[in-house]
């Protein structure tokens, strides 16, 4: 009996090691499930599953800015677009570049790099854009970030439409290598969750929440408000850029209008429905609100076949759902709380 007590105590002391072990077990479980999905589902469902992974990345990382730091970024579409174009231009085969992009700088025309570094580059470019937008705007108190990021979306779209040599304008980029799959999107999703969780549980995360709760008091207690808000914003932009790359290599064709305000709207709804300030809420919100419109679309098709065409029904239902959550459960499904995975020890 005393030996049992002893071992229990040892486990508690090694909480971090234990979390690593249990976390590894969960990842193994997820890998098994993905493997099962891979071997049983058809391409249509696998694609939806991959999109779920992308939406988890977007929602969880947006939570850092909009949920924890209390800002309101609407930059998702812009950052995805930057990430998608950057990564696609880097990963396209050289032969295709010389054929379709005669105006591209020669060094870029002669380069083709693997998916992972291309994706990281996409994230980095999005992060740089976030620094440029955030540095002047995040000094100001208030929701200027929402306006500035909307502006960024317009700018990115105009640039993508007109920078013919690099983006091919409205024709977009086709034939992007189909490298993205459930393994990549869920791998990045796990990494995103891990990074966001680590940040939220670090002094920086506490400072973000403090700024959200009371700007003045956070400042008076020595929190560097600009730096902390910028960290949240830039990190979330990085992951949005990564998601853009994953999306581009999944769909294999992008145009400037691929990244419209609808994407931003959908991700914000996922975040709000899941509950701002809850990582688990973001994950659940992303999963639910990816599956729901997909199944409603099948209803639409069935209705259309039955003689009542109601296209657009899924969009309306999502918007209504968002409105209902705002009215009856403003804190979202999770209300800032987390579900702890069984077996994990609190730090």
């Amino acid at each position, binding site marked *: 009996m005393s030996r049992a007590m002893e071992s229990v105590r040892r486990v508690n002391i090694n909480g971090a090691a234990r979390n690593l072990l249990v976390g590894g077990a969960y990842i193994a479980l997820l890998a098994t499930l993905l493997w099962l999905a891979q071997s049983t589902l058809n391409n249509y469902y696998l694609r939806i599953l991959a999109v779920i992974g992308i939406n988890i990345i977007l929602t969880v990382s947006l939570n850092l800015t909009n949920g924890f730091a209390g800002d309101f970024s609407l930059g998702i579409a812009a950052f995805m677009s930057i990430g998608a174009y950057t990564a696609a231009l880097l990963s396209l085969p050289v032969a295709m570049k010389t054929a379709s992009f005669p105006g591209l700088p020669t060094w870029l025309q002669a380069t083709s790099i693997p998916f992972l570094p291309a994706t990281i580059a996409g994230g980095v470019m999005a992060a740089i854009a976030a620094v440029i937008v955030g540095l002047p705007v995040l000094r100001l108190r208030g929701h200027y970030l929402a306006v500035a990021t909307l502006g960024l979306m317009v700018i990115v779209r105009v640039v993508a439409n007109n920078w013919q040599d690099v983006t091919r304008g409205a024709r977009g980029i086709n034939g992007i290598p189909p490298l993205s799959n459930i393994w990549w999107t869920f791998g990045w999703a796990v990494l995103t969750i891990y990074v966001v969780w680590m940040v939220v549980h670090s002094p920086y995360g*506490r400072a973000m929440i*403090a700024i959200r*709760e009371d700007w003045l*008091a956070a*400042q*008076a*207690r020595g*929190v*560097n*408000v600009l730096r902390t808000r910028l960290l949240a914003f830039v990190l979330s932009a990085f992951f949005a850029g990564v998601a853009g790359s994953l999306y581009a290599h999944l769909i294999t064709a992008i145009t400037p209008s691929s990244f419209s305000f609808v994407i931003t709207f959908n991700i914000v709804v996922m975040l709000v429905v899941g509950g701002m300030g809850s990582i688990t809420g973001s994950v659940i919100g992303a999963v639910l609100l990816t599956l729901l419109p997909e199944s409603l679309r099948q209803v639409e098709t069935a209705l259309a076949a039955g003689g009542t065409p109601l296209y657009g029904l899924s969009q309306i239902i999502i918007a209504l759902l968002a409105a209902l959550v705002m009215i009856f459960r403003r804190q979202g499904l999770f209300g800032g709380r987390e579900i702890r995975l069984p077996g994990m020890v609190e730090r």
Partner: protein
Amino acid sequence: MVRVEDLTVAYGGIEAVRGVSLEVGEGELVTLIGNNGAGKTSTLMAISGMAPIRSGRIVIDGEETTKLPPHAIVARGVAHCPEGRLVFGRLTVQENLRLGAYQRKDSAGVKQDLDRVYALFPRLLERRSQLAGTLSGGEQQMLAIGRALMSRPRLLMLDEPSLGLAPLIVQRIFSVIQQLHEEGVTILLVEQNAHLALTVADRAYVLETGEVRLAGPAKQLIDNPEVRKAYLSQ
């Protein structure tokens, strides 16, 4: 410790502080009294870098800090406990206190100061895992003061610590202020309750419409007929 020279603070076109000069010496307890809108809060905000300074200088320990950002001023040993008990409502009491020590790296010292704050305010110890937003007004004020102490400040600035609190709690809070003063903490206190402020302070400045109207030892001001008439309603 801190010297304010000819300070003018203006929000847009409106001057809240007009040419105020004041000084707080090492270990002193100095109070600013005056009516609403006299410029007391703006003066504190200017010292901690959170108000728009139009002209004048602020010198802390011989170093000019007029243009420094708030976090740099905290790093120089100033703790500002703002008006209105601004606690972080959705963090626990203990998380609030830990945020008070945000810039500190010495975890042993932080732990020590945490115990000290709990000793000063045992109520906070009882409620340490409770969300700060669920505390009563008096408890929130204790938490706000405790959080300010967590940076181990050399200058503690308290803005209206008695505002809206029951007399018994005001008494408790002021006895803590006195205790801190006796321990040698330099304190700049802004208070509407002039009588209370003058009872505990060494020196006082009377502010009126953004200017220093009177200054002197608290014991003298408390007997000054002008002060008695205007602020002590006697």
